[in-house]
């Protein structure tokens, strides 16, 4: 069977993501550029997994807390337990997923704005716990410092180290491509189809035999697992942790990236994260006006492109065709080809 157009688009998209991220160090090895690029890749894991949850119509404001749970879990396991990064990395994901089951299970009993607000409440509780409680473990308000970098990895007789910026970049790259492969695969499977259906009409889906709650919880737990993995990378590449790394502010940025990019497609968060991160680098030119301009850009984008940046090519295409085709297009509207 030849691949369907949808599958072909998925493969092309994934190929572009892989080529772009793997190829970047060939273009620039400038330390600042690599730093920004590494942050983008890490944020991509977070926004793409957040979109998996949003695609059922639920905005989880505690997503970043699971990144935090992963970060602290990996750090404590390595610094206190002496485990290797290659174990703590996965434990971080599992730990986030384990916490996601009760938290998601409770939060998903409500929907819409209630869900939004209850997850926000959870995230604040988690952050305040990191900041104020169990200080001997989480470091209290001063956080954790001197976190070791990832351990070297012996692979087929070759010793790989993760000390330099480019090496860390490639590690993040591998993690992203793994996560993206899972997310893209799911998006083009029954899992993605059903998630999309739930967003369009959860009551209809439920009466057609879809156990909506379990579906949403599955997406929640998987999304949290990925956030936990991103958290472990964050901890060992930044080497310092602070509760404010997992507060409302960075969470809001993740939502902005995801929604501005467009939640209708698995590639929306990729576009949003890359474009907005680079754009905000340029917006530094505005100095004092930076935040003002950034806010205005968000408002205008949402008003002009309600479905996000990802819908821009389609919109332009229609505009061009309308310009060239004129009335024929308008008259033909509604008739299937």
């Amino acid at each position, binding site marked *: 069977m030849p691949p369907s157009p949808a599958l072909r688009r998925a493969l092309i998209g994934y190929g572009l993501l892989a080529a772009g991220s793997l190829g970047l160090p060939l273009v620039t090895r400038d330390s600042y550029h690599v730093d920004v690029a590494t942050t983008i890749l890490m944020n991509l894991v977070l926004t793409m997994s957040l979109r998996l949850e949003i695609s059922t119509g639920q905005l989880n404001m505690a997503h970043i807390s699971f990144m935090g749970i992963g970060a602290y879990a990996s750090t404590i396991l390595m610094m206190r337990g002496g485990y290797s990064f290659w174990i703590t990395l996965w434990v971080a994901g599992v730990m986030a997923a384990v916490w996601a089951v009760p938290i998601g299970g409770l939060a998903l009993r409500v929907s819409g704005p209630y869900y939004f607000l209850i997850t926000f409440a959870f995230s604040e509780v988690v952050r305040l716990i990191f900041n104020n409680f169990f200080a001997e473990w989480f470091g209290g308000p001063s956080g954790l410092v001197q976190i070791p970098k990832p351990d070297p990895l012996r692979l087929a007789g070759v010793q790989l180290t993760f000390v330099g910026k480019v090496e860390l970049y490639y590690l993040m790259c591998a993690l992203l491509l793994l996560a993206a492969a899972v997310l893209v695969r799911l998006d083009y499977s*029954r*899992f993605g189809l*059903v998630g999309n259906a739930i967003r*369009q*009409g959860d009551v209809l*889906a*439920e*009466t057609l035999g879809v*156990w909506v709650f379990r579906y949403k919880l*599955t997406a929640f737990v998987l999304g949290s697992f990925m956030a936990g993995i991103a958290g472990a990378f964050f901890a060992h590449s930044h080497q310092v942790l602070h509760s404010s790394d997992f507060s409302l502010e960075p969470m809001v940025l993740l939502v902005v990236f995801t929604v501005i990019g467009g939640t209708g497609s698995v590639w929306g968060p990729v576009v949003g994260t890359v474009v907005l991160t680079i754009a905000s680098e340029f917006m530094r030119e505005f100095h004092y006006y930076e935040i003002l301009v950034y806010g205005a850009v968000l408002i205008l984008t949402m008003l002009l492109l309600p479905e996000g940046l990802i819908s821009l090519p389609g919109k332009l295409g229609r505009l061009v065709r309308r310009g060239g085709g004129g009335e024929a297009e308008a008259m033909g509207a509604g008739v299937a080809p």
Partner: protein
Amino acid sequence: MAVSDLSMMVTPGAIHGLIGPNGAGKSTVFNLISGVLSLSAGEIFFKGERISGLRPSEICRRGVARTFQATTLFREFTVLQNLLVAAHLRAADGLAPALFASPAYRRKEREALASAQENLTSLGLGGTAQAGRSVEKLPHRDQKALSIAMALATGAELVLLDEPLAGLTAQEREETLGALRRLRDRGLTILLVEHDMKAVMGLCDVVTVLDHGVRIAEGTPREIQENPAVIEAYLGAEDARA
């Protein structure tokens, strides 16, 4: 709209009509049976098992599917995608099978696809051009047909149809009535809410009449038509509306 003290029995293999003036509680009954609303008192059994208190998806899995009064579809999907979602219970569910595309997952997906195509054809929506069409662009009749096809695609033995004839032309009504009779002859049980009295009386084996959430009569169409309480409640309401 509240329903109280309602007791009714649907015979397997029959077409059972549920009628009553506006606001009699017909749609509420559908919502209660399908689990969209929960009962405050009482029980509902299907094939000897209690289904009240279960979540809607579980009730559907046990064999009860429904349509909605305002024809409800996944608006952004194509005809085929709608049917594929409806065939969810026949497909391999869950994360791992979808992720690793196990042979069982692929076989079940093929089966779901095949049964979706079959449903399309049986409702006169066949052909690939139709399957790939966005449901937004379908004519009203086809949207109605699709919503019924989706209820069937779940594999249900009892389908609850909420006004399947609303908004159809006389000829489309005849076609739909014929299709419903064929479904009954294949062994399906149908419970339907409908305002078209002539159609209900011609189609149904049994009719239950609701008024203000209470059952006021039940029987064959002939018995119902001669029941004075029905005539008063129903025609009185008709007069008031006219």
